[in-house]
């Protein structure tokens, strides 16, 4: 049976950056596996620009950003197994056995010491948000439509209504308009838009595409192909029927969920708020030797942060292999007032940690506070604004010994 020190599952932004950093940390025996026949993950279909400002100081498209990391991985001689899906992970003591179905190598069993989960995420769909109505052709998730349009050159529709104003929905609104389609409306259930400001301006306002906040689709009509959707407004928690919009396609951009299939198979516990694995500040899950980073851990808005997270994760893996990960008891991190989630779920005494969090709703002029169970303020940071679509990071230095838990909250 083949054996490697570290297996990285997924060759998207996270997996590539993790592999490159492992090499930089002198871990030589690394294998990256991806089910697709190319590396780069979701970036490949994101042909718009807006990637790499933090990481490279310039604005790149998704494929360009991916290429930079593919080149680095090549430079470092990272071994890659493409067109290969990991289907099972069995942990026995310190060794894990991984089953891979590979187009070129058949069924491959690999013994590994450590695993980095970097499988990315998938899109929420109609069933997840329970839109009633008929089940005709013409209902697509935004990511699928993006793949059809950008990679395969097919238009899935002519007249669109888009549900969800997250970044993918906004970017697709512009993309479809540029391809000659009519985007009749973008509907958002929340009272505020879900995507980044720059995308609202550049993708909707510039093309006169109306955005309706506090609106939802209450019915899909059409038996073979979508013919129209019924839309209601939400006011004080009540629905008021507003309009019927005729369209041949409904695009759903209603959020992403970490790809958990394998994590669950491997015995990894999940965090209800992020829907990804529970990890410590070392990015290690509850299964010793299994680590996670990127969108499989929690959904990121900027790829640059994915790359950073993956590097930090790789560093922790190199310490794990050298038996140098701090063994101290983990201190739980709680989400307090107005905090939707915090990653990681635990930190370690006398260690540094980067907390990543998102607020429940948009806020202005707030203070983000990190306090211990004994009331010590470990960090306090003023923010002019905090919005759910922009991840907030807080650096914690030297977590004090003796505290039993810490809480992160917004002081309004």
């Amino acid at each position: 049976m083949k054996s490697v020190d570290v297996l990285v599952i997924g060759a998207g932004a996270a997996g590539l950056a993790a592999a490159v950093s492992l090499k930089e940390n002198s871990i030589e025996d690394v294998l990256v596996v991806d089910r697709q026949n190319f590396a780069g993950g979701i970036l490949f279909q994101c042909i718009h620009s807006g990637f790499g400002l933090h990481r490279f100081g310039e604005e790149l498209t998704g494929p360009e950003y991916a290429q930079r990391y593919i080149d680095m991985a090549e430079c470092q001689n990272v071994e890659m197994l493409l067109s290969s899906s990991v289907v099972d992970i069995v942990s026995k003591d310190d060794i894990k056995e991984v089953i891979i179905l590979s187009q070129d190598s058949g069924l491959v069993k690999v013994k590994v010491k450590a695993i980095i989960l970097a499988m990315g995420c998938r899109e929420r769909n109609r069933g997840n948000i329970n839109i009633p109505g008929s089940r005709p052709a013409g209902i697509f998730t935004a990511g699928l439509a993006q793949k059809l349009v950008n990679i395969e050159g097919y238009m899935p529709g002519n007249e669109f209504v888009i549900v969800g104003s997250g970044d993918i929905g906004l970017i697709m609104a512009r993309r479809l308009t540029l391809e000659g389609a009519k985007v009749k409306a973008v509907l958002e259930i929340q009272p505020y838009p879900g995507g980044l400001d720059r995308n609202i301006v550049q993708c909707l306002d510039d093309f006169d595409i109306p955005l309706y906040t506090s609106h939802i689709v209450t019915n899909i009509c059409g038996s073979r192909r979508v013919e129209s959707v019924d839309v209601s407004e939400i006011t004080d928690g009540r629905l008021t029927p507003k309009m019927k919009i005729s369209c041949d396609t409904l695009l759903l951009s209603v959020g992403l969920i970490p790809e958990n299939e394998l994590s669950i198979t491997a015995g990894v516990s999940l965090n209800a708020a992020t829907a990804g694995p529970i990890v410590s500040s070392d990015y290690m899950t509850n299964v010793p030797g299994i680590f996670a980073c990127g969108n499989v851990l929690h959904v990121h808005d900027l790829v640059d942060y994915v790359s950073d997270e993956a590097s930090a994760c790789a560093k922790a893996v190199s310490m794990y292999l050298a038996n140098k990960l701090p063994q101290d008891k983990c201190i739980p991190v709680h989400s307090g007032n107005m905090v939707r989630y915090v990653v990681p779920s635990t930190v370690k005494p006398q260690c540094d940690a980067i907390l990543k969090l998102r607020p429940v709703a948009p806020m202005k002029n707030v203070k983000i506070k990190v306090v211990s169970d004994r009331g010590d303020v470990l960090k306090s940071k003023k923010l002019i604004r905090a919005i759910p679509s922009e991840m907030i990071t807080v650096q914690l230095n030297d977590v004090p010994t003796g505290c039993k838990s810490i809480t992160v909250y917004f002081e309004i």
Partner: protein
Amino acid sequence: MSKKYDIAIIGAGVVGASIARRLSRYKLTVALLEKEVDVSFGTSKANSGIIHAGFHDTPGSLKAELCVRGNTEYDRLADELEFPFERRGELVVAFDEEQQQTLYKLYRNGQQNGVRYMELLGRERTLELEPNLNPDVLGSLYAPTAGIIGPYEYCFALVENAVKNGVELLLSFEVAGIHKTNNFFSVESSDGRSIESSFLVNAAGLCADRIAAMCGMNNFKITPRKGEEYLLDKRVGKLVRRVIFPAPKTNSKGILVIPTIDGPVMIGPTADDIDDKEDFSTTKEGLDRVFAFTSHTVPAIRVSDIITSFAGLRPVPSRNDFIIDKTEVSGFINAAGIQSPGLTASPAIAEKICGIILSCGLRMELNPDFNPKRKAKIRTRTLVENRDYDTLGKLIQSDKNYSKLVCRCENVSEAEIIDAIYRGHTTIDSIKYATRACSGRCQGGFCTSRILQLISEHAGIDILKITKKGPGSELILHRIDKGHQ
């Protein structure tokens, strides 16, 4: 000149398919006519997939008789045709004294109908069998002979085997007119094709009344009764092992918690009489009703666990029992009004129809070449679930396409999808029913584009012509380089 058959069957749902397969044992020429692009696209694809034990139906009714008889056929059928089937058992649960009384009544019904091995269970035994039930349960009626099944796989398998044994399947053949001349029916489709047959079996489900009317018979009407069903994420796992029923009220068996043969749990169906035979929409109100009910029976069920929903229409006849008989028009036989438990009863319905045809004087000689076996494709998913990697490894050596996973949620390989295409399933929905690709939690978000390519490549259909479920449901409207056309 249109082709002549001994028998033509209208409708390729489980009823028409069962009849076709049953008739394929004989030296007869049989045509199976279906208006949709694939079989099992009617009520037979949208149901609860339960092989009922048979205690619900009124003793003496055809429904009761054929349900109990049909039930006994499934071990053999599943063995011959290799569709998924498991005898899991049904449990009717009671939460108050009145419901307890209903259990006794059902028990007596069952005894009269000839249901075997039923038991009345107390609270403890009930919870022992199904620990996720609401602990307030008082007791239950347990019928271990009930089973669960993959309903469309069953129908696909029946038709495949029937065709292998000589039945001719005519798809997209919507019967639009029937003329009886001397001893022949001449049957015309809406696109101008026609066939002739000595016998005509009406298994047209919701449209059986229209078909009968084409022959001048207006003695029954079919009303659609809608049932909405909701499928839960497999994350919530195997919440129940058996089918859980409430103590029933009138006209339906109530809202159930149903383990499906593929793992996830389904909840539903509702039962609402409607007017429109094309109305397959689900409603907010339906969801609320299903959910309110099942969250009482099995409190662990949450709305957020729902991954998809669908609605099916039961063909409810004006007389409230199956209509299976010859008619005043000689040679025209009804297998109509087959509402629940029609799936369960289908093998017995087929047997009965054969008997009727025989009694009408048709010479039915056994076909010595009849082969009852149909082989299913081995599923990657099953091997992975069972961690049977030796078999999977060998399979991949013999067919490389087994190593290419297309559907990541359900572990469906390219080998299985290509196999389904060569078995004649070339719409996205049929591929889903045949292989489970697109039926997992991402509902096709990742694999649809690859499935489109595979259908195009192996069935030689232009991508722009590939549909979800037949003409008018194309997925791609135009190519980008060519622009609007």
